[in-house]
């Protein structure tokens, strides 16, 4: 079943809040690069602050938060592995480089998707991502 489209055109203030949920995750990326947990905390706080908002806002806050939650272990593993290499607890192997390149690629894709989502939701369009969209549908009711 495809994600349910919204039955109404969100008003300006809803579109702005929904868009801000993506912008929030972009802003905290600066801090979140060395400490991936900061991304999740930032998106989590924004979601909680908007938990009583209109469904459109909640839905996009949740999608943004879920993307951060999934990215967290991937980035944290990359960070831990890098620290281990720097402090000589692990070797600089081909596996390490392959993992870091993959993580960087996925983060770039996520960054672009987040920017596109921020712009489109600001215009009041609904954006549903692969996997995160259906999962958000299942979690955000009413």
């Amino acid at each position, binding site marked *: *079943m495809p994600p349910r489209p919204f039955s109404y055109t969100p008003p300006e203030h809803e579109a702005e809040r929904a868009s801000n949920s993506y912008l929030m995750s972009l802003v905290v990326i600066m801090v979140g690069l060395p400490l991936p947990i900061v991304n999740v905390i930032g998106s989590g706080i924004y979601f909680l602050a908007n938990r009583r908002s209109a469904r459109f806002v909640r839905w996009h806050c949740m999608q943004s938060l879920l993307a951060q939650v999934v990215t967290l272990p*991937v980035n944290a593993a990359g960070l831990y592995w890098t620290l281990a290499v*720097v*402090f*000589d607890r692990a070797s*600089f*192997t*081909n*596996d390490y*480089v*392959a*993992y870091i*390149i*993959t993580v960087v*690629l*996925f983060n770039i894709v996520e960054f672009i998707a987040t920017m596109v989502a921020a712009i489109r939701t600001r215009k009041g369009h609904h954006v549903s991502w*692969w*996997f995160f969209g*259906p*999962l958000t549908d*299942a979690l955000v009711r009413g």
Partner: protein
Amino acid sequence: MQRIFGQFLVLAGLFFGTCFLLRTVDYRSFFRVEELTREAEHNLTELILDQLKKEGSECSSDSVLALVDSIKQRVCAANGIADSSITLHILVRDEVNAVALPDRHLVLYTAMIRYCNSPEELAGVLAHEISHIQHGHILKRLRREVGVSMLTALAGGEASGEIVRQTTRLLTSSAFDREMETDADNSAVHMMAKAGIDPVHFADLLFRLSQEKMNVPKRFEWISSHPNTQERCAKILKLRKQEAYMIRPILTAAQWTFLKKAIGTMRTEGS
């Protein structure tokens, strides 16, 4: 729910598939990791050796070098290590010490040879230092204690003489961490047994050194930085029981006497 799970599997497959494909590339060769590490290690070792030679001249007796080298050869050959890959230096110094350097160099002080009661004890010292070399402990420790940036500066000849002196001092006067020392002891016991040398001699030497270090800690730097020598001896003796080996003599009595006599005539400048 099935759709969510299916999409998750595709996403995870994409991530791990990309990772799997990317790992087929040899990045280490691309970044010349081995080449650069070898070059840096070589430069660093040259600096440290120069510093050590300023503090004590290198033994010039070919016969002494040949005899000690034959012990090293015996340990290496029995353990599948290319003997030529480890360069031995003997320095005329009054401290009872032996040091493993980067780039597979091993420095033995004449006082250590003089202190050993048998070629087997000397083999124990060599096996212990060779183990540090084999495990790559030297660079690991330098990276940890000196720092990667400082090591790069040292290897590139950009560090001051004082930093070279301090790095040399670090390598010659303090022990590796407990884990590394234990690894080196365990490997030394195994190497000695494989070479047909009774590891009990290594434990004997450590025990004797631990008794003497209390009186003259400065002279016994090889052991004075190890607080747990008795425990190490006990572990060596325990491991020895697990090894099966057939003892074969290393040097003849005449060769050993000659070595001790030759070393005995060498004195450091000023002594």
